Structure formats: structure tokens, C-alpha cells
């Protein structure tokens, strides 16, 4: 059985920056436990001599000529931002009071 507890889910949610409700944490604890148990079978055949594959068709050293290309204008880059001013993205405070 997996070791997924509500504390695990709460910690993962913090890492993933999702403010889950207590109800969601409870539901996800059970669901993740079942999913993790089911996918753990990958370890059965993953013996040390088998190399890992990250991409189905590996390409190496994909370069382009080092010349300026077409890029978004400042206005375009900000066009979807929830808040922007003076050509920049606007966010709330980066540091909390305790920092």
C-alpha cells in the first residue's frame, strides 16, 4: 500500500502552488494512493541494466543561427497579462511579512 497521507498531499500542493481545500486534500489522498499503487508496477521490470528513455526520437545539439529573429513586441507580450503597467507585468508583494 502506498504511503500517501493527507500531510503528503498538503505538502505536494504547497510545492505545486495549489491552495487545495481540506475536502480536496481528503479526496486526493485516497485517489492518489490508489493511482500510486497502480503505477508502482513500473519498478517490476526497470532493472539496472535497462537505460532510460527521455524522448522517443532523440535529437542532439539542435541549434539555430545566432541571429535576431522575430519576437513578440512588448505590447504583445503583455497582452494577456492580468495586470501590466509601464511595459511590465504587475504582481503583488514577492516577500511576505516574515521574510
Amino acid at each position: 500500500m502506498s504511503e500517501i497521507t493527507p500531510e503528503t498531499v498538503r505538502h505536494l500542493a504547497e510545492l505545486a502552488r495549489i491552495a487545495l481545500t481540506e475536502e480536496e486534500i481528503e479526496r486526493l489522498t485516497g485517489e492518489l494512493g490508489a493511482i500510486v499503487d497502480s503505477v508502482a508496477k513500473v519498478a517490476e521490470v526497470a532493472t539496472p541494466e535497462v537505460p532510460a528513455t527521455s524522448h522517443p526520437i532523440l535529437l542532439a545539439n539542435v541549434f539555430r543561427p545566432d541571429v535576431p529573429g522575430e519576437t513578440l513586441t512588448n505590447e504583445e507580450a503583455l497582452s494577456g497579462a492580468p495586470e501590466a503597467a509601464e511595459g511590465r507585468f504587475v504582481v503583488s508583494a514577492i516577500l511576505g511579512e516574515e521574510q
Partner: protein
Amino acid sequence: MNAAPGADLTRKTAAELASLLAAREVSAVEVARAHLDRIAAVDGDIHAFLHVSDAALAAAAMVDSARGDGEELGPLAGVPVAIKDVLTTKDMPSTAGSKILEGWVPPYDATTVARLRAGHLVPLGKTNMDEFAMGSSTEHSAYGPTRNPWDLDRIPGGSGGGSAAAVAAFESPIALGSDTGGSIRQPGAVTGTVGVKPTYGAVSRYGAIALASSLDQVGPVSRTVLDAALLHDVIGGHDPRDSTSLADAWPSFADAAREGGLAESLKGVRVGVVKELDSPGFQPGVSQRFHETLEVLTAAGAEIVEVRAPHFEYAVAAYYVILPAEASSNLAKFDSVRFGLRVTPPGGGTVEQVMAATREAGFGPEVKRRVILGTYALSAGYYDAYYGSAQKVRTLIQRDFADAFAQADVLVSPSAPTTAFKIGEKVNDPLAMYLNDVTTIPANLAGVPGMTIPMGLAPEDGLPTGFQLMAPAREDARLYRIGATLERLIGERHGAILDAAPALG
């Protein structure tokens, strides 16, 4: 055009429309209007579209005027196309089925979309999908489910249920989809349509809102193999904006499909039946149609060989480690800063708290489930056991494919284990939902191309079933050639499957 009843134009294939347009027997505006009328008539029931373009008629008029000026136009000029909402379009919202991107109009087109426009196709709108392509039923769309044109109480497959349903309901002749674990092929199977997942890297992913970057592939959705090939020819080929894009020169897939459509036999073709994907657990009517189709292949001169792929039974497990891991990284970009939703917690908060509140409000349950799962699989102490092992399984599955392709030119299986299930039947059981992709996931893990074509209706429920063909990487043309021959042979047996679909509207 003699009297031009709009309904007739919507029943035509993209290839037929292209001929009529080239011969100036119909105008692109007439063709676009017929499809927009069909959307207006039936999409209230189907909900294939999240957004219908208000620029379609203007785009069509420009094609007509270019043709009038004698401009050299592409083979599908003036043909309407629907676009899965996972692809960015600078004139239409691009939400990937998520509330977090509601109303977002990107400042750039996906390369595939830019190629549609350059080929003078006419975009009709954006199609519904499971949120960020996470799902097999389109029920995980934040904007409500799409319904299967064969039975409005049933799912159209997913994640690309909108594109498949739009094509099956004659709202568009062709559409773009994306396939990470079966999101083109499984919807094709359950709606009686054709879909192709190209070789990984054969079609650009630039502007495809990423789910799992090592698995995602954009591809064509259609009602015939030739139409899929024609669309693949338009969107495929190297794109310097996608560093995983293959620099290969590709043959004309339309030529391959036409050649296959005319082939008298399949003599000399070795067809490998993957034992592990011919499960006794599949729906009986699906298995029955599959085995009948193998008889059709034999009768046409193909040699049927049984092949083993012993590691395919680990494919779903490996997939549900790799996909959430990559998705949790890709979805980190939805941070409430650069685009999309921003939700500020009561009383305000730091940028991190705003981010967490935004993602809580903007992501649906399946997205949260997978992001949390992926975060777990990548976290220190678990990485080797899950992500590392899953990547090794990927190697083993590639080796299974290599062994199988040493014995067969194409591998075949049912495209999905069942016909379309009822809306609501599996939505609260993630593990049951994940098993819908058992037949399609191996091709994504190995990067090989796969196609689904209709193989008749399951006798017990009268719903469509799909036959999957897979070829070695870079051999997409082989799928179109053999697929077109098989499509003709199945058609001789069952007729055009969509002729049996209920009338809508």
C-alpha cells in the same frame, strides 16, 4: 453550382470540396456558410465547438478572391477546418478547455495553424477538449462535455472529443487534434471517424499548449484516410521553432493514400497482431469487428502474424508516471502573472499566495490530480522508483516495437477497448478512465505513428468501433497507403459508417 443545398456540401469530403473549389463549381464562401449553418443547427446538441470564428466568411472570401486573381493555391484552399482549442490562434480565444485560460487570445499562431492559413484553409472555430488534454471523454472540459453524434448521452472520446464530434456530425470536413496517449485515435474510434497520430516530431508542437512534451503530437482528424493525408501534408514538416521537430524530408501522404486507395490487393504486406492488445477483456463487439477485419486483410492477400509485446502491459503505468511528471512542469507556467486568470485571496497576499489561489480556482479536478501526482513522482526520494523506472519501461516498449516490426510491416489492434460509454459513467473513477487508452499509449511512448479507421458498428450496441494501425517511426506514409486500401475494403463490407449515424438538428 446547381441549387447548392448547403446540407450537401457538408456531406462532402475535404478532397471532394477541394476539387469543386478548384473547378470553381462552388465558392469557398458557399462552403464555409454551409458548415456554419450546420454548426448553428446541430452544435447546441453536440457542443463540439468552444468558439465559432466570426472571421470564417471573410477568410473564405479572401480565398475566392485569390483564386479569382489566378493565384497559385494549396490543395485544400477554401476547405473549412476546425482547430482543437489546445492550439494557439491569434484571432480566437485559446483555452485548452481550462478556466485558467478563459478568454485568452494569444499573440501568436501555432505553427500548424499558421500553415493552415498559408494553405488558404478556412478556420471555422475552436473545438472542445478535456482540460489541458487530460482525459478520454471530454467530460473534463471546464466548459461542459461534448456529446457523441451517435448517441447524445454518450462521450465522444477524449481529449479531442470536440474535433472528432465536429467531423462526425458534418460540422467540419477535417479538424486538427493532438494525441498524447490516444487523444486523436480513441475519439476517432468511438465516433466512427479517422485520426492519425504522426511520428513524434513529424508535426510541429510550437503553439500547442504543452501537456507532456515527450509524448504530445499534433495530427489530422477526418472522415477519410485521404483527407487525413491531405491535412497532414499541409501541417507537417520541419519547424525550427520546435527543437524536437524532425528535419526529415517527408513524402506526400496524399499520394500514398491515393495509391493505397487504388491498390488491388495487400499481397506481400505483413500485418502483426499484437497479442497483448487483443485482449479477451475487450467489449465482444469490438473484438468481433477486429477479427472480421483481420479476415478482410487475409482475403486481400496480407499475411497475418501474431507478435508479442511483453512490456505493453506496463505501458499505462509508465504513462501515468511520465505524463503527470511532465504536465506538472509544463503547467507551472500558469502562474497568474503572464496570462490567464488571477485570483487574489481575501485580504490580498504575496505573489505565491495569489498563484496558489489562482491555480486552485482555475484548475479542474483532473488537472489538480495529475499535477499533484506528477509533483510526487518527481520529488526527492521517489524520482528513481517512479519517473526513473517509467523511463526504463519506455526503453523496453521501444524494444518490443523494434522486435515486432522485424516481423511485420504494420502492427494492428482495436483502437479502443470499448465503444462510447455513457457520460458520467467513469468520470469519478480515474483508474477506470485511464484504461481507455491501453491500446493507444504504447505508440506515444515509442514515438511511432498510429492511425484509427472505422471497422463497423459493434453488434450489441450499434456504436462505432475503430481499427488501429501502427508503423515504425518515420513510416507514416505506410499507414496512409495500407490504411486507404483497408478503408476501401471495409467500406465494401459495411458501407460508409457515418451514413448509419442518426440525423441531427
